[in-house]
Structure formats: structure tokens, C-alpha cells
């Protein structure tokens, strides 16, 4: 019952701008949404804390500009945090704040512990390299120097995400959006990461392809028991995937709980609005 979380995030803050006398104090700051009118500083993430447990899918919902993607970028080290702590509970990383680690250690975490699927495949894939090459890139980064092994692993992964093998040497730029997204998922899974980030993975895909990708993610989660953080503004996606859900508004967590609970019986005014505006 008292499981230890695999990822702990404490007081994550991310601001764009230096801040001024009026907005530096967390308790008394007056912001228009997340924006300080007197100095133009934007508080994208304010005091975000949560735990991610092994094998769990954590959903994060919120409107555009609520800080979902910024939070993901901070966790994946794509951008630096302003302040805050995060801990990964694996034997060699336990007890150390990952935000304060050296660039090499961060790269180690990205290569061995994390997998990331971006909303836009252009960010996660090298569009002018073959699909096999894209997957191999992550394997090479993790120290693999055997072409035969890497090719075999890549083939298996691409098969798992239903990419026809006769197209595996093609560049992802020739693929449809849904296929690109699936190559990205295969790449993210190549090193069996314990933690997988999914940033709006189905946004922009048509409904049947969306169902396909979601099915795939669900299957992966069931078979491999990977912990996932799923960011989406689509409540249907969250309902289908997430065990627990966090609602973000203006960079703050306003509600969290079991997905069913949050969606069936929303407490916060904004969540109520969000749930009932579902068509």
C-alpha cells in the first residue's frame, strides 16, 4: 500500500522574466492569469508538486497556456527550472535533486531513465534520417556499438507500433502524422525507460488514428508497466489512459485525484467548467 514513488516533484517553479517588487512575493503577488502587469514576468509553473508511482499513468489537464508543456520541458531538461526539486528513485539516482545535476548526468537520465513523445514529431525525430536510424540514435547514445543488435531491436519496436517493416529504412518525413507519432513512441521505448512522457500525443491526429495510438500506449503500459505522465487538453484521452489526474490552471495545481473522481465529481470551479463544456 505504501509504495515508494518513482518520481517526486517538489515546488517546481518556472518563470519567464526577472520579476519585480510587486510579484516576487509568492503569497501577495497579483497576477492577471499568470502574468505580472507591472514588469511583464510570466509565471508558467508555480509551486507544482506531485508524485508518480511505478506503473502508474498520471494525467495532466488544463487549457492552453496553463503550463502543462512547460512543466514537461522542465522535467525532460529541455528548459531549466527557476527553482524546485525532483527526485528519481532508482538505485543510482536516489536522494539527488535531478535539476541540480551536471549536464552529463542529465543526459544519462534522458538516455536511460526517460522516454519522451512530443506533440510535434519534428521535435522528437530527425526527419532526414531513416526510422531505424532514429531509434538507433537513442541506442547509440546509451552506448550500443553493435549494428546487428540495434537493427534487430529497432525492427522489433517498429513492428510493435505497427510500422510495416518494408518502410523501416524510410525517413519519417515521408510518413503520415500518425505513423510519425508511432515512430516517436518506438524511439522513446527503445531503452526500456521506467518513465515515459507523452505530450499531447494525439492532438492533430484524426479520430481513427487517435484511437490506434491510444490503444498502442495502453497496450505498452499494460505489458511493460512503464510509469507515464500524459499531458493533454483532451479529457477523453485522459479518461481513457490516466489512473490519476492533475488539473492545472495558470501554472498552479488546482485539483488532483483519481481520474474518475475528478471527472465525475469536480470540486474546483474551473474543473467543473472544463468537464461540463465537454461536447
Amino acid at each position, binding site marked *: 500500500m505504501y509504495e515508494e514513488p518513482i518520481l517526486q516533484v517538489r515546488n517546481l517553479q518556472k518563470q519567464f522574466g526577472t520579476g519585480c517588487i510587486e510579484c516576487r512575493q509568492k503569497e501577495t503577488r497579483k497576477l492577471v492569469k499568470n502574468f505580472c502587469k507591472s514588469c511583464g514576468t510570466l509565471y508558467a509553473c508555480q509551486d507544482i508538486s506531485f508524485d508518480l508511482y511505478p506503473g502508474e499513468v498520471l494525467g495532466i489537464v488544463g487549457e492552453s497556456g496553463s503550463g502543462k508543456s512547460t512543466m514537461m520541458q522542465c522535467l525532460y531538461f529541455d528548459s531549466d527550472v527557476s527553482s524546485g526539486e525532483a527526485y528519481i528513485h532508482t538505485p543510482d539516482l536516489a536522494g539527488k535533486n535531478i535539476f541540480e545535476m551536471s*549536464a552529463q548526468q542529465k*543526459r544519462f537520465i534522458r538516455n536511460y531513465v526517460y522516454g519522451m513523445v512530443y506533440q510535434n514529431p519534428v521535435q522528437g525525430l530527425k526527419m532526414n534520417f*531513416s526510422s531505424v*536510424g532514429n531509434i*538507433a*540514435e537513442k541506442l*547509440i547514445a546509451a552506448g550500443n556499438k*553493435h*549494428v546487428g543488435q540495434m537493427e534487430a531491436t529497432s525492427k522489433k519496436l517498429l513492428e510493435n507500433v505497427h510500422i510495416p517493416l518494408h518502410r523501416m529504412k524510410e525517413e519519417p518525413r515521408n510518413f503520415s502524422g500518425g505513423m510519425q507519432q508511432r515512430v516517436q513512441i518506438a524511439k522513446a521505448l527503445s531503452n526500456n525507460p521506467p518513465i515515459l512522457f507523452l505530450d499531447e500525443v494525439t492532438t492533430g491526429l484524426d479520430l481513427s488514428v487517435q484511437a490506434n495510438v491510444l490503444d498502442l500506449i495502453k497496450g505498452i503500459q499494460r505489458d511493460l508497466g512503464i510509469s507515464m505522465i500524459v499531458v493533454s487538453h483532451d479529457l477523453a484521452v485522459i479518461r481513457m489512459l490516466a489512473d490519476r489526474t492533475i488539473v492545472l490552471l495558470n501554472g498552479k495545481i488546482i485539483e488532483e485525484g483519481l481520474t474518475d473522481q475528478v471527472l465525475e465529481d469536480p470540486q474546483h470551479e474551473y474543473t467543473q467548467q472544463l468537464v461540463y463544456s465537454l461536447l
Partner: protein
Amino acid sequence: MKTDTHFAFFDEGSKKEIRRAIIKAVAIPGYQVPFASREMPIARGWGTGGLQITLSIIGKSDVLKVIDQGADESVNAVSIKKLVHDTTGVELTEQTEEASLIQSRHRIPEVALTKDQIIVLQVPMPEPLRPVEASELKTKTMHAENDYSGAWLMLFEQIMKYGKTATAADHPVYVNDRYVMAPSPIPRFDNSKLHESEALILLGAGREKKIYAVPPYTNVESLAFDDYPFTVEAFEDKHCHICNSTDVFLDELIDPQTGETIHQCNDTSFCMDQLNKKVEEEAQKSYV
């Protein structure tokens, strides 16, 4: 127009700056040291990096050889030789053994270099990671973090496409187990000559404003996967049609008269040497 220039064309301040960059490059094998590439009387991309190194380290007692793709007589080599000779008055040679300083475009001579020699290579593209990453800031970070997956990925892609690594020249190397370096577009055949070289190897990229070096007796290893070992161009059963040499880098030519494919030494001074030796031997024989 003929003006009386300073010794070796450059003012002493410029030489000092370039020498500082060279010393740093020697101290960190394979690391690309930025330097203020000067405006030269030849266009960038025509060997200005090599020329700037040559001019800033040359002394009055040096003997200079300049090669362009293995040839001593090509226009580029001759022009560079003329410029250096006009501004320094140093002796010029075509014999690899006689030279104390060799500036070369895309070849390392067939004759093994000695500890008393320095070879300067002209580099068009010093960054081995550029094809995977366009940003200089990012490639610098990748070097700093020893993140060379991009360089490996390029080789992997070639194996996927062609079944083997397809770098004709400029096959990336690991220098001193630390930095991945572009060895300038020398053929793979010459990569082994970088390893534990007795001569100091300096590389200059004028357009890209970088100097780097392989100091004598440094480990230089060509990048290769476990199951796809590094191979050089093979010239099995082939020999130079002029001097009959084997085990050298050969150019493939087509005889305009017969339409036949013939091979010829790429290193012209080496070829000439072999011919001279043969003539001498025959003269010796007929004398007896």
C-alpha cells in the same frame, strides 16, 4: 605589383595569435580552437587555414613542400609555394624526406613522416557533427559532454543504406579517446597514418576559423561499429602503371587512347622517387 612584405607575410601580432591557438590545439588533442582567421591573398576555401598556420610557424631554415591532392605541381600547390617563397625566401622541395614543413590538401604523403617534420592539413569542414546539428553552440556542448551519438548515427545510416560505411574521405576519428575529429578530407587509406604519428599534425580551417592538432604519438582511432570494422580503400591486384607500386593510394584513370582503366600513384613525388630509384638501379647494373 610587388611590395616588400614583412617576413612570412603576416605581422608579428597575427603570428602570435595564431601560434597561441596552435599551442592550445596541441595541448588539447582533437579540440577545435577558434582563431581570428585573416584575410589572405587567396580566397577562403582554397587553403587559407593551412596557409595561415604555415606562415605563422615557418622559420628561415625551414624547407617547405606543398601538396594538393597528392600532387606537387597543381595550381593551388604552386601558388601557395610561390607566396610563401616570395615572402620568406625559404627553400622549396618536392621530396617528402627533405621537407621540414609540409602543407597538404587532402593527403598524407606515402613516405612515413619523422619527428622532425610538421604536416599542416587544409580543412574545409572541421566540425564532424555539423551534418547532424546545425547550431555551433549545440555542437560545442556535444563535444564538451562527449556526446557523439550524432557522428555514430551518420555511420549507422550509411550501413543501413549501403550495407557498409560509405565515407569516401573525412572518416571521423577519436583522438586520444576524447574528442571526435574530422581528419580533413584525407582518404580512409590515410587515417592509419594519423595514429601514433611521429610528426606533429596541425589542421587549419580558414573559412570556419578553427585550428586543431594531433600531437606526435597520439592515439587516433577511426570510428567503427563492433560488427562493421573500419576498412580502407582496397587496391587488390592493382598497381601503379608508371612505377608498379602496390600498397599505396592509387588514382583510377581511363586511358583516353585505349579506353582501359589504369591506376596511378596519387602521391606524385613518391611515384617519381620510385622511378628514379629504378633508373639508378639499372644504371648500377649496366655499369658492372
